């Protein structure tokens, strides 16, 4: 599932409420029928910002979640090796993040989250800071990884093509104050190829439909970009 919408409409806030980082002003958020109070179990989070620990090597970054859970060293090693292979990070296991590119660091962050096998993965514009090429690369990667395990992924993006490429369902939000404007089911067949899918007429048709709705929001925005709209940070 992907959430798209104009800046400052509260996309990140929704994610942070699911993740228990922000308490809703009204109402409660439930994950798996349990109200959220603090960081819920079984939920992973990939931030837009680089949150790889700079003082740990790639291997030890990916192992973090396993370490916290106190898994035996042999098991940790096995799963980290597997994750490294899946992410194509072989040969960089003992490198410190400072020596890696932004794309590789985000790959480490992604694998670090997935290696503990969360049932729900929250992603807040995880590829937002990357160049187009790296972004496509990581989208393909994510699709491949997701296909193997089919976890629930809540993916925030302002890039509509990214949302259509990845998601089964897209939530379009209105501008501030953010409300849900539309829930759209993407019918593109899987497995999808991130490049080829964009050339299909089905993709173009769906893109056009959502773009039209999203466009209304951007157009009516005008000069209303309120100061202090920092939720989207």
């Amino acid at each position, binding site marked *: 599932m992907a959430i798209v919408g104009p800046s400052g409409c509260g996309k990140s806030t929704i994610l942070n409420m699911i*993740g228990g*980082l922000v308490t809703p002003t009204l109402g409660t958020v439930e994950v798996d029928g349990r109200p959220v109070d603090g*960081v819920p*179990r079984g*939920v*992973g*989070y990939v*931030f837009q*910002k680089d*949150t790889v*620990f*700079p*003082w*740990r*090597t790639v291997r030890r970054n990916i192992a*973090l*979640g396993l*370490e*916290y*859970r106190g898994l035996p060293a042999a098991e940790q090693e096995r799963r980290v090796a597997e994750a490294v292979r899946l992410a194509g990070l072989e040969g960089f296991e003992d490198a*410190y*993040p*400072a*020596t890696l590119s932004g794309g590789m660091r985000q790959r480490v*962050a992604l694998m*670090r*989250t997935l290696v*503990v096998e969360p049932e729900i993965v929250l992603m807040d514009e995880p590829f937002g800071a990357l160049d187009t090429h790296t972004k496509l690369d990581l989208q393909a990667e994510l699709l491949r990884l997701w296909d193997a395990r089919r976890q629930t992924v809540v993916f925030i993006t302002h890039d509509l093509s990214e949302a259509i490429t990845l998601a089964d369902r897209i939530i379009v939000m209105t501008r501030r104050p953010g409300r849900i404007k539309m829930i759209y089911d993407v019918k593109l067949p899987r497995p999808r190829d991130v490049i080829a899918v964009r050339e299909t007429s089905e993709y173009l048709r769906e893109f056009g439909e959502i773009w039209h709705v999203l466009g209304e929001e951007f157009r009516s925005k005008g000069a209303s970009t309120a100061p202090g709209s920092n939720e989207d940070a």
Partner: protein
Amino acid sequence: MSMRTERVRVLVWQLAILVVLLGAWEWLTGIKTVSRTPGLYWVDPFFISRPSAIVQRFAYLMSDQVRLSLWEMALSTVQSTLWGFVVGVSTGFVAGLVLGRHDRLARIFQPYIVAFNSLPRIALVPLITMIFGFGLAAKVVLAWTIVFFIVFFNTFQGARSVDADLIHSARFLGASERQIMRTVVIPSTLAWTFASLTPSISFALIGVVVGEFLGGESGGGLGYLIIQSLGTLNAADMMVALLTLGVIGIVMAVGIRQVERRLLCWRPEYRGRA
């Protein structure tokens, strides 16, 4: 031009300056003024001594002809400095970490810390001497009162500026509060703490020498040698003590740099130089 020839060139210049300075010192303190008054110099070695005299005194102070050799004094100074450093750094680090992570405690202790830190530490010397006597303890305590605050303030800043998103990520990966402390807060704070270690060792040395000024012979140390030389108006001995202190300061600072490089090898600025 390669790095190597550049390094050699810099070294040659540094040596040349040293030779010129020492030569000028030796030469200028050797010229007498054209005057009938005997022993009047253009630059009087009485005050600044001469390199040749310093070397002589150095050899003499190192020998076993003296009751307390230069070796023993240097050792005493180094020992007190390291103790003050270790005690100051460890307590400062723990205090900085605790207050840095607990806002209320930080607010409660803030005025006390500011007040104590604005007190000139030298003013404490007589009191510390009164309480701890003339030996090792007094010197260590004095060094501690200075080092503690340097390390404390740095660690405090570091502990406060830990990236909240790193803590969130750890939490999402299932970390307990303890694990967050160990794997996020402490490593991220250490970089700040390390930045305070080089000044800390210098200040520890200052504290110890000041303590030795007052400490008398039982405290030993190079500070004692300096005060003793003042009593006998012996500039050469003073120079010996100063040069030895300089060497000690450099060696300790270099040692700390090495440890820092090893432990902070993940930072790009230390890459490939460890």
